[in-house]
């Protein structure tokens, strides 16, 4: 039998990686995604499925359709590029975590029922947190814990939702669920929402990702949110509330991105912004919009990976990634600079780069469905992406004022990984027909016409013009060493401070009660010692020993009575 679920190879590799070192291990890490990709390509056909049963329940370990297959290919590509980027890493636990994490992502997108999905959902959470903890700093440790709490919460909600769903419908199959499914629908919806970083539930991402290792963030950016996008597309396509959630996600992070100093955190915000475009597409729910959402997930994994890799390379060489202390790095890292710019042009949806061919589908779908004002907001978000991810990232890292930092070009393995990603960005951007052919729904769409190209070029060039003008006028906010308050403030500051206040006030209350009560208590005691009862032995002092003694006596008596009575 040649049909086995694609996550298997990854889990076997995770075991092997634990026992091997150096070249054999590196070969395993590179071969696993390649072999799995070939397996998907050659052996697995749309419509096939693999079932297993636990406690009389028939569960579906692998369900193959065009939607799951597309994400399967995508995750193999992402894992392959990530493995090359992490080729130099010696840390065993990082490799095991990354391979298990990628395998779990594959397991999740091929899961045919909610329980299997839940298992991989939790495995994603547990394996990925090690990529944050592996950084080894105290900050990373704490951020990882906060990240894990959100991820596990999402899993618990998913499980609860699955059980209620089973109770209501008698089925565990993971197909369209919809919010009409009542409580079950909402529980699963919020579980997916946490993982796709819905507004107010997003801070695990902007808090956790920038604290991960140089290579860890590259893996993190590829899998978790994209599995969630897949799950939303499968379970909640066409739920209109997603349109509004998606537009919010596309718009609010760009403000943070403009004033954020940590450039990997800027990318984390822009990740939410890009997922916003996908979520909007899923919410519109037409074939064109859904295809657009999926296609955008595909191109986003690659260009966002490329951007995280380029910033990772800078962090690796320079040792920090704050916009306020970087600048002028094009002098020592010219290749990384060029590759970063390719990623920047792709995320900005420049014609001929991958973001253009996928994002324009969502924008066109908004227009077809006559969401006028939302379309305007998304156009604003598009201009904003170019501003913070397209210009700010390369500008403050590689150009701006010369920080005087002279370092080396990124290591060769990093350059190879970035080059593959950059070539894919250009390939998808110039030859979109291959990506379009893999999309799950049948739609005629072609992005390259005068209208689209001209409109997009005008939008982008004048966004850039605004950047130039603001900079010349000195109106552009300088990069400052700082943090900006976001949702995490509630649990990192408000709750701890409130808890501390409660503890302090309780302590104060105790002290004041004591100070009030001490005098009368002493008074009672003095009166007691003077009274006639005080001369009995037990009332003199109450040492624990004598208490234990008398309790033992009582117990023995009780036992004796019980035994003989």
């Amino acid at each position: 039998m040649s049909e086995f679920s694609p996550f298997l190879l990854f889990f076997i590799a995770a075991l092997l990686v634990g026992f091997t070192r150096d070249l054999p291990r590196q070969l395993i890490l590179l071969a696993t995604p390649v072999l799995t990709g070939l397996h998907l390509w050659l052996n697995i056909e749309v419509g096939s499925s693999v079932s297993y049963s636990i406690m009389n329940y028939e569960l579906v370990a692998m369900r193959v359709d065009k939607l799951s297959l597309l994400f399967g290919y995508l995750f193999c590509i992402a894992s392959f590029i990530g493995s090359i980027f992490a080729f130099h890493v010696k840390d065993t636990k990082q490799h095991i975590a990354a391979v298990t994490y990628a395998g779990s992502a594959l397991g999740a997108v091929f899961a045919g029922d909610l329980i299997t999905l839940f298992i991989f959902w939790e495995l994603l959470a547990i394996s990925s947190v090690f990529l944050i903890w592996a950084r080894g700093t105290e900050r990373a440790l704490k951020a990882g814990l906060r990240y894990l709490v959100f991820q596990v919460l999402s899993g618990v909600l998913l499980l609860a939702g699955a059980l209620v769903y089973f109770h209501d419908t008698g089925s565990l199959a993971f197909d369209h669920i919809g919010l009409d499914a009542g409580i079950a629908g909402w529980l699963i919806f919020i579980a997916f929402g946490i993982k796709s970083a819905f507004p107010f539930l997003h801070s695990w991402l902007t808090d956790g990702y920038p604290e991960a290792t140089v290579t860890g963030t590259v893996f993190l950016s590829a899998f978790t949110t994209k599995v969630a996008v897949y799950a939303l597309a499968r379970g909640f396509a066409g739920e209109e509330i997603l349109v509004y959630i998606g537009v919010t996600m596309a718009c609010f992070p760009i403000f943070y991105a403009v004033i954020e100093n940590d450039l990997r955190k800027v990318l984390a915000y822009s990740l939410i912004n890009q997922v916003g475009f996908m979520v909007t597409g899923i919410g519109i729910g037409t074939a064109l919009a859904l295809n657009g959402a999926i296609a955008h997930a595909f191109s986003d994994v690659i260009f966002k990976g490329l951007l995280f890799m380029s910033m990772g390379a800078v962090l690796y060489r320079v040792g920090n990634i704050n916009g306020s202390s970087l600048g002028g790095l094009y002098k020592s890292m010219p290749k990384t600079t060029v590759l970063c710019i390719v990623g920047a042009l792709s995320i900005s949806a420049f014609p001929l780069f991958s973001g253009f061919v996928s994002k324009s589908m969502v924008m066109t779908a908004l227009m077809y469905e006559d969401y006028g004002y939302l379309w305007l907001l998304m156009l604003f978000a598009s201009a904003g992406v170019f501003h913070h991810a397209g210009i700010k990232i390369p500008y403050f890292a590689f150009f701006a004022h010369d920080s005087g930092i002279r370092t080396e070009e990124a290591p060769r393995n990093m350059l190879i990984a970035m080059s593959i990603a950059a070539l894919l960005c250009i390939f998808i951007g110039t030859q979109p027909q291959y990506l379009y052919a893999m999309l799950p729904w049948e739609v005629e769409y072609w992005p390259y016409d005068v209208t689209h190209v001209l409109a997009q070029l005008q939008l982008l060039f004048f966004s850039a013009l605004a950047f130039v003008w603001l900079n010349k006028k000195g109106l552009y906010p300088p990069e400052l060493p700082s943090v900006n308050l976001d949702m995490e403030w509630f649990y990192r500051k408000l709750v701890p401070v409130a808890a501390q206040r409660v503890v302090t006030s309780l302590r104060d209350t105790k002290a004041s009660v004591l100070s009030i009560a001490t005098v009368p208590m002493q008074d009672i005691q003095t009166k007691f010692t003077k009274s006639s009862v005080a001369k009995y032995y037990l009332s003199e002092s109450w040492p624990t020993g004598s208490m234990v003694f008398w309790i033992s006596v009582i117990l023995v008596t009780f036992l004796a009575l019980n035994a003989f009575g």
Partner: protein
Amino acid sequence: MSDKNEKVYFFDRPENIERLLKGFYAICILLVLADFVLHRHIGFGWEEIPAFYSLYGFAACVVLVVIAKKMRNVLMRKEDYYDE
């Protein structure tokens, strides 16, 4: 760092930046002119405004930056804010 023999890089010369910006401005002007020559399909009424995308892109980014700067007054804290 202040080695006098250090190579002079492309953007160390102000005239190169000047040239690059001039080219950039020229493209911007051409793109606006193209709006009057080429025919665009119109989906929404506001797309009929001449140079709509150019104006919108420019305005969007200025608004974005102005609001973001204002946000700093409320949201910005010292780097070690959470570590205290």
